[in-house]
């Protein structure tokens, strides 16, 4: 997998790495104006058109879990945001993340067949795994806190996901590339949203500045985990299907620093947490989130909705 040029600058420029657009991103029937839906992937899985390798499935599970947990967190803001426009904006971002999660999980499930040989569904993965089976990194499960904490989390996530998806548009795995091609455009807006709020809160009132600084300090210990490599990501990078997370760090640091500098903020000087989410070691927060998310589905195992 080729490394995109390092000339990419702030948000708004998504041409690099997305060249070719939807029509080339997938070997399947995804064309411009006909965006990739989770249902499309499910159909391709069912008809045997696509099947991820074991490594790709595990990788898709990681990325799907990240997006799912974030969607669950952000969904909580709907009807509670500081302004109606933010109910809509945060709801939109949650929906985008949920869409990415559904695509990644559907694809992951295709590489994780059940005993009868059929693919594991997105819902079976979301609702019937236990806490230690989730592969999301710990940043995504961090509580919403106040609006500044949520924006701090969004700021880190959107800059990270943008770099990641931008690179994955060139994945040798056509389905991962297709998901990333759709996702990178959406995450670019998330980046715009979060960076604008970082500037507003940092440059608004004394209170908002204090809260923004506090929010960044709350989230920054979990930044390191985003960029940790392991055998899986090294193998996938070698095969051109995935990315070693450490290779995203430089652009992430540079682009977030641009915003922080403009906001007259420092990169928080806080110790990094050890992480471990990719191996099922989560913070104390995930269990509650899952308990709420899964409760109804688990009351009616096997039911369809």
């Amino acid at each position, binding site marked *: 997998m080729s490394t995109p040029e390092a000339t990419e600058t702030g948000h708004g420029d998504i041409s690099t790495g997305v060249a070719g657009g939807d029509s080339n991103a997938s070997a399947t029937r995804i064309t411009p104006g006909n965006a990739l839906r*989770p249902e499309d992937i499910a159909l391709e899985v069912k008809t045997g058109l696509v099947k991820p390798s074991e490594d790709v499935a595990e990788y898709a599970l990681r990325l799907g879990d990240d997006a*799912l947990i974030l*969607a*669950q967190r952000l*969904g*909580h803001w*709907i*009807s*509670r*945001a*500081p*302004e*109606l*426009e*933010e*109910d*809509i904006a945060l*709801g*939109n971002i*949650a*929906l985008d993340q*949920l*869409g990415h*999660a*559904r695509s990644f*999980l559907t694809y992951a499930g295709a590489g994780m067949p059940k005993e009868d040989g059929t693919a594991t569904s*997105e*819902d079976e993965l*979301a*609702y019937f795994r236990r806490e230690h089976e989730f592969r999301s990194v710990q940043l995504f499960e961090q509580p919403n806190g*106040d*609006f500044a904490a949520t924006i701090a989390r969004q700021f880190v996530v959107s800059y990270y996901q943008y770099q990641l998806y931008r690179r994955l548009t060139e994945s040798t795995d056509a389905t991962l590339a297709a998901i990333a091609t759709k996702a990178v455009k959406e995450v670019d807006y998330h980046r715009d949203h979060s960076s604008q709020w970082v*500037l*507003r*809160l940092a*440059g*608004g*009132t004394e*209170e*908002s500045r204090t*809260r923004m600084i506090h929010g960044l300090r709350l989230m920054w210990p979990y930044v390191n985990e985003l960029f940790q490599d392991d055998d899986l990501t090294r193998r996938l990078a070698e095969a051109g299907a995935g990315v070693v997370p450490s290779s995203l760090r430089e652009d992430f640091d540079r682009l977030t620093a641009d915003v922080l500098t403009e906001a007259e903020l420092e990169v928080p000087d806080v110790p990094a947490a050890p992480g471990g989410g990719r191996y099922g070691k989560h913070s104390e927060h995930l269990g509650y989130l899952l308990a*709420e*998310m899964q*409760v*109804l*589905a688990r009351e*009616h195992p096997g*039911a*369809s*909705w």
Partner: protein
Amino acid sequence: MAAQNLQSVPAERTAGTSETADAEGQAHFDRIIAEDSRIEPRDWMPAAYRKTLLRQVSQHAHSEIIGMQPEANWISRAPSLKRKAILMAKVQDEAGHGLYLYSAAETLGQSRDKMMDDLIAGKARYSSIFNYPARTWADMGAIGWLVDGAAICNQVPLCRASYGPYGRAMVRVCKEESFHQRQGFEILLELSNGTPEQKQMAQDAVNRWYAPALMMFGPPDDDSPNSKQSMAWNIKRFSNDELRSRFVGMMVEQVRVLGLTLPDDQVRFNEDTRKWEHGPLDWHEFQEVLAGRGPCNAQRLERRRAAHDDGAWVREAAAAYAAKQSAKQQKEYAA
């Protein structure tokens, strides 16, 4: 002339002697209503027309915003990811409807902040249906099918309301509402064809939401003092009872497809009047909920108040930042 105090009344219409302006304005207004054409924000309008509309449109906006809560209650627990996505999109649509409607109401001369303050202070009303709890997942189906269904019956004629901004807002609102109703129907259909527990859940939800949904059309015609004037002004096109009867007829057909029943054994088509009839409704309960003594009135208002209060520092920050940026730009421009 009260309307003169409102900022949306343009200077040219309020210039001159107010009596002449009033007489001319009234003639113009009467002509537009007689032609069944549209009043626009800059047109002269009677103070009572403005007041009626402002009340109706702002109440409608408040209903959308408060109405987000019972459904937001199930976003985190939606039983499949697809349903979660649909529900999120739906509640988000409602925030959007609230925004268009507050904007439409603002053209009548009142700020969104003031309307929001009135809502939080308990001075403004919203549809009493949202003071009932959404106890189970099936309520997402029943709210979509019955509550949004009733709302559509009410709102489709409002697309032709004489006040332009309101009518136009309703066109878009109705398009989205019809999606909402279909997704509600689909939830119930899936449950009805599911396990016995799921079917029971669906029937229970329909039982609980049926009567409150019928009461959404407002009091019976002989007890609805404002209706006549609203109809004369081409705001309202059909009476409460007329709309209610139509709605019952639609539900009778659809509930069969769902394989469920309506909790009303007196529903029948009256061959003489050619109208659908239903059993008695508990208007005492309606008045109680309207008066603030419903199951969730306090909870709904408190949640809105909390969101508003918790967000105050964010809105202040955004305003302060915008002011600083604008001052900076002016300085740069001057330099």
